[in-house]
């Protein structure tokens, strides 16, 4: 499916560019990288509105897992912020 390939190439490009740019700025916190990846994945998935419903359901599962990871990061960060 051509649209799948274009989606994968776009996501790979965005994630790689994000990694390079944040590394160039000397970012050393892994949670910042992860948050950027999460936002990019969610935005790109929403932009590809013509993906078939089964593909969108599969990608929703991926988004939920990433969001659960984000919630875990927030949960670990709260004691550090309050403490």
């Amino acid at each position, binding site marked *: 499916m*051509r649209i799948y390939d274009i989606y*994968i190439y776009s996501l790979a490009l965005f994630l790689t560019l994000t990694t390079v740019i944040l590394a160039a700025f000397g970012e050393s916190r892994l949670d910042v990288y992860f948050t950027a990846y999460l936002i990019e994945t969610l935005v790109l998935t929403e932009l590809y509105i013509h993906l078939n419903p089964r*593909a969108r359901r599969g*990608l929703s599962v991926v988004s939920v897992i990433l969001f659960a990871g984000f919630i875990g990061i927030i949960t670990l960060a709260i004691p550090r912020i309050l403490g």
Partner: protein
Amino acid sequence: MRFSDNRHNLLGVGLASGGGFIAVVSYFVLNSTPLAALGVSMIIMGGVCLALGRTRPKIPPELSAILLQSGLENTAALVEELGLRSKAIYLPSSLTSGHPQALIPLRSNPETVQIREALPKRLIANYGPGPEDIGILVTTPGSASLGMLGSKPGPGAGELETAITSLAVGMLDVADGARAKIVEGRVIIEVMGPRLDSNNIWLYQCLGSPLASIVASLACEALDRPLVIEREAHEQARCVIELRVLD
């Protein structure tokens, strides 16, 4: 199709496992956050590839092409044997037995065909009171593909364009994009980057090419009006399909 035959699955497993290894080694051994982040991004890519791999069609494309060709050849033989020369009239599901179909009338002039009520589920259908008001009712590639959309598209040009793009680009992968406009009883649809063959055979003169058939079925269902394929022009990297809405 087995799990290992799907290239997206293989790519997903490779990226996820490689990314996991890189992330763990980079974070705990090399103490390099950018490399660990790269590993995490590979895991995300692996998950995406696995999610998309599960949605690939189970029927191989070669088998789908064989089924399409055999179906079209059977319909072509039927039309040729009956000596039908008129253009097919695409009917919405409200005028057929539940899904859009194409009526090929015995009359040469489709303008005179007036269908006011739903036709019975028969191959040979009487659509009017006269003895010559007979035609054959066939299921086209467009009829079969309409079930893939979750809901009936609306009658506006924008909604029709979105439905055609979703079907042709997102689900069937037969084009790169589509544009639609409705002007004075005509629907003009431009399909960019079509990938279906449009051989100039008699059946395509009657029913339209498979791509035109899909577009016509979608348009007649969206407008809830019968229509005919007036013109189909294949130019460089695009196909322009002009449909005429019948009264």
